């Protein structure tokens, strides 16, 4: 493939993923559109079950039965990864040009394999290195992700490492072939708060030094603020809003984004209490028609029974709402204060 600079790095178009369960078909993704440019850092936020992780897994080709990609397309530098030839190509891309860091470093490493070998394995696979070369490079990688005494650590097993250490190993594994895109699926969720900051710092540093594009999946808006250029907000298997990070934080257009931000603690703001969004995400077994958020939305009206399109709203931003940029929750607090509760 020839890298054309104007082409986006990754394009996800109307991606649909379904899971068969005993109780019926769960439509985890219902037409996700997402574009990533070279060198950019994009955060995908949303509550659990909104489909953020599934999106990442679809890109990595990790959707297995009972799940399947039932529609849409994923393109890497303009080439579809879902066609027959694309799937073949994708096998060589993954781990090399696109790499992933998972949420739980406790279970993501093979417990019975030395961590060094788990890293050098990637090098042997993609860069055709000999075992000895790969081992040497592994030590450099461990050094690069800030693991002290690499030769000793490389010979240890995952259970001998702390959680933060393991996540660093995962990152070393991911950057081993100097990928262009790093997908980080809630990379700090399973870690202690102090370690979280270190790991994020490491990711930010690597992003700078290697010129990585990062797709960061998280439910933690605090993580997003400092690290990402752009934000995409997911709800019930769809993207509901995208935009530059500061725009989305300062002037959220979608009622759901507004609610999400209201319910997040901030240090620079003297809000007296945090306010949760009432209700629960919809049951994805019976995916709702129209706007999925309308049951919980304080400003929903008759139009919301039709699914709003994801339309450009402002510079580099899109939103899927009939009444975008209305201050949805101010009204709600006035009208029905009893609906909201302090967290």
């Amino acid at each position, binding site marked *: 493939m020839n890298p054309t600079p104007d082409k986006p790095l990754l394009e996800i178009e109307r991606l649909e993923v379904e899971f068969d369960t005993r109780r019926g078909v769960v439509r985890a993704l219902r037409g996700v559109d997402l574009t990533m440019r070279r060198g950019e850092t994009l955060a995908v936020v949303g509550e659990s079950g909104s489909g953020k992780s599934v999106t990442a897994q679809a890109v990595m080709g*990790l959707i297995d039965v009972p799940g399947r990609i039932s529609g849409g397309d994923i393109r890497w530098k303009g080439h579809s990864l879902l066609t027959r030839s694309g799937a073949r190509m994708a096998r060589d891309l993954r781990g090399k040009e696109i790499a992933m860091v998972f949420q739980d470093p406790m279970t993501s490493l093979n417990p019975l394999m030395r961590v060094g070998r788990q890293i050098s*394995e990637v090098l042997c696979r993609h860069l055709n290195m000999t075992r000895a070369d790969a081992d040497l490079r592994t030590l450099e990688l461990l050094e690069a992700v800030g693991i002290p005494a690499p030769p000793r650590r490389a010979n240890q097993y995952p259970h001998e490492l702390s959680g933060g250490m393991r996540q660093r190993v995962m990152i070393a594994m991911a950057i081993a072939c100097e990928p262009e895109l790093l997908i980080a699926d809630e990379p700090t969720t399973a870690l202690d708060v102090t370690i979280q900051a270190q790991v994020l710092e490491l990711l930010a540093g690597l992003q700078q030094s290697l010129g990585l594009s990062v797709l960061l999946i998280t439910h933690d808006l605090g993580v997003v603020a400092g690290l990402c250029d752009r934000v995409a907000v997911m709800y019930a298997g769809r993207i509901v809003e995208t935009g530059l990070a500061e725009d989305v934080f300062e002037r959220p257009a979608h009622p759901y984004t507004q609610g999400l931000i209201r319910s997040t603690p901030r240090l620079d703001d003297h809000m007296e209490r945090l306010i949760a969004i009432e209700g629960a995400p919809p049951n994805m077994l019976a995916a709702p028609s129209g706007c999925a958020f309308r049951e919980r939305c304080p400003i929903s009206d008759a139009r919301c029974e039709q699914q709003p399109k994801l339309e450009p709203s402002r510079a580099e931003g899109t939103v899927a709402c009939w009444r975008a940029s209305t201050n949805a929750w101010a009204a709600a607090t006035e009208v029905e204060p009893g609906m909201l509760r302090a967290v």
Partner: protein
Amino acid sequence: MGRFILRRLGQGFLVVLGVSLVVFVAMRVFGDPAKVMLPLSATAEQRAEFEHLIGLDRPLPEQFVSFIGDLATLDFGESLWQRRPAMDVVFERLPNTLMLIGAGLGLAVLLALPLGALAALRPGGFVDRVTVIGGLVGLSTPQFWLGLLLIMLFAVNLKILPTSGFGGIKYLVLPALTMALPSLARMVLLVRSQVIDELNQQYVRTARAKGLRFHQVLFGHALRNTLIPFITLAGWEVISALAGYTVVVESVFAWPGLGLTAIQAIQRNDLFLLQAIVFTVAIGIVLINITLDVVYKLIDPRIRIA
């Protein structure tokens, strides 16, 4: 490591002590060795003489002490049937049993890994369902009956293998097959479900996200991690074969190993010989258990060496 082995040896000693207690209670308290071992025509004097000879006329605790003493010196008395020390008979027959177990379980181990992995590749598929049903049939088949069926097929009808006995490799085929099948069934089912589980583990997703080829994921990760439970089961199979399953196979095929000898000893009321076999096997099991524990320590990094 040394202390660990020592501790396991201590536990093994308790096992042997437990076995001797059970044997002692069975023989001297519930049973009547004199009645079992002497011919029906034995007179009261002969009976008294025999009881005195093996110490039955002394109080039980004293008997137990001397019983343990005999065991400690590996003195199991004279085989009534063979008219020579029981241990000599045991050592003569033991290699045959080991040969049978080795051939049978070796076969099972060699076949179980590929078959189980093959079934696990497509869980719910045709190969998988055939394997599972086949495995269940295998572990539902009584070994002695399987042996007889094989004899009827290969020896009686096809006449290509001998029915029973001991000699060249021809004589080993059917007993080894009979020995192998139930173990193979258990092992295949284990490998299959374990590989399926491993393939669903998060670390396998990591391996796939790394772009590893399928065979690398399967052999390098999933199957490799299945080896630990597999070794556990294989060890258990050796132990349970030694602990008695060979008795059945050996008696079907008249294979002159420890198991057949045990049955012959029972038929000839040769309790000393039987007792010697039981203790030899008990000690063998203790040693295998210790070996297995050491193997785990070597291959499973999660077990700390105490």
